[in-house]
C-alpha cells in the first residue's frame, strides 16, 4: 500500500506504488480519457443546418452525462444564452486539457516501469513529478474523484451510509477507490504546498 506523495530532496515530489495501484491509476485515467471523448464535444444541431455544420467551435448545451456535466459546469446558471456562449468558447479547450492531464498520468506510470499488461504483484514503481507534473496529477485525480463521486452519488456527510453497506456491495469497492484517491490527493497537495 502506497504511503502517498512526499517532497523530494532537490525539488519535486515522489511516491512509491505497487503494480496493482499503478495499474488502477492507469485504468482510471484511461476511463477518463474515454469518457471525455465519448460524448463528442460538438454543437447540437441548430435551426439552420448550414450554420450548425459551420459552427465547430464547441458545444453550447450542458453535457447529458452527469459526470461530464460536473466536469464542465454551467458558468451562468441564470442566463442560458451567456452559458451557451461560454461553453462554446471553453469546453473544447477544457476537455483537451483534462484528457491531456490524464494522458500525462499514464505516460508517467509507464515511463516509471508499469508494463502494458501487468502480471504478478511484486512490481514496485517510483513516480517522481516536477511541479508541472504534480499539477497535472493533482488536476487529473480531482477529475477522477469527481467522476467516481458522480457515479456513486456522493453527498456531503454521507460517510455513515457508506460504512453501513455490506462488503459484497459493488459500490463499496468503488467507494474504497474514491477514498484512496482522496488520500493520495491530500498527500500530493501537502507535498507540493510551500
Amino acid at each position, binding site marked *: 500500500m502506497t504511503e502517498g506523495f512526499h517532497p523530494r530532496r532537490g525539488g519535486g515530489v515522489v511516491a512509491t506504488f505497487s503494480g496493482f495501484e499503478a495499474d488502477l491509476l492507469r485504468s482510471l485515467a484511461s476511463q477518463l480519457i474515454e469518457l471525455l471523448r465519448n460524448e463528442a464535444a460538438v454543437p447540437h444541431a*441548430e435551426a439552420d443546418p448550414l*450554420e450548425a455544420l459551420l*459552427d465547430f467551435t464547441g458545444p*453550447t448545451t450542458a453535457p447529458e452525462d452527469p459526470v461530464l456535466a*460536473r*466536469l*464542465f*459546469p*454551467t*458558468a*451562468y*446558471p*441564470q442566463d442560458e*444564452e*451567456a452559458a451557451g*456562449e*461560454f461553453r*462554446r*468558447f*471553453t469546453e473544447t*479547450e*477544457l476537455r483537451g*486539457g*483534462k484528457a491531456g492531464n490524464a494522458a500525462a498520468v499514464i505516460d508517467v506510470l509507464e515511463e516509471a516501469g508499469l508494463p502494458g499488461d501487468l502480471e504478478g504483484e511484486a512490481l514496485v514503481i517510483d513516480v517522481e513529478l516536477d511541479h508541472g507534473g504534480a*499539477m497535472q496529477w*493533482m*488536476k487529473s485525480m*480531482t*477529475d477522477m*474523484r*469527481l467522476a467516481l*463521486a458522480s457515479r456513486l452519488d*456522493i*453527498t*456531503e*456527510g*454521507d460517510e455513515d451510509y457508506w460504512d453501513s453497506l455490506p462488503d459484497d456491495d459493488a459500490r463499496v469497492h468503488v467507494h474504497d477507490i474514491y477514498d484512496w484517491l*482522496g488520500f493520495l*490527493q*491530500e498527500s500530493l*497537495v*501537502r507535498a*507540493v*504546498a510551500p
Partner: protein
Amino acid sequence: MSTPAPLEVEEPVADELTATDRPWQTVVWNDPVNLMSYVTFVFRQYFGFTEKKAEKLMLQVHHDGRCTVSSGSREEMERDVQAMHEYGLWATLERAEG
C-alpha cells in the same frame, strides 16, 4: 447567428466607481468531493492569495455554500471561471451587486 454576445461595457460613474470597475464576480460553490486542502491550494496557486486568505475563502465556501473569490471585468471573470473548471472546482459568474 451564432456570434459571441458583445460584452456589455458600463460607462463609469464617478460615485459608483467600485461597482463599475468590477462589475462581475467569480463565485466558487461548495461540493462534497473536493478536499479542503486542495481548494485552499488552488486559491493560493491561481490567485496568488496568502495561505491565510485562501483558507478563509475556502472555509467560507465550505460553511456558506459559496464564496466570491474574484471580481473584475466580464472577460477577466470568464478567464477565472474557466481556470476553476480546469482545476475541477465548481465556479460560476455573476454580476456584482450594487
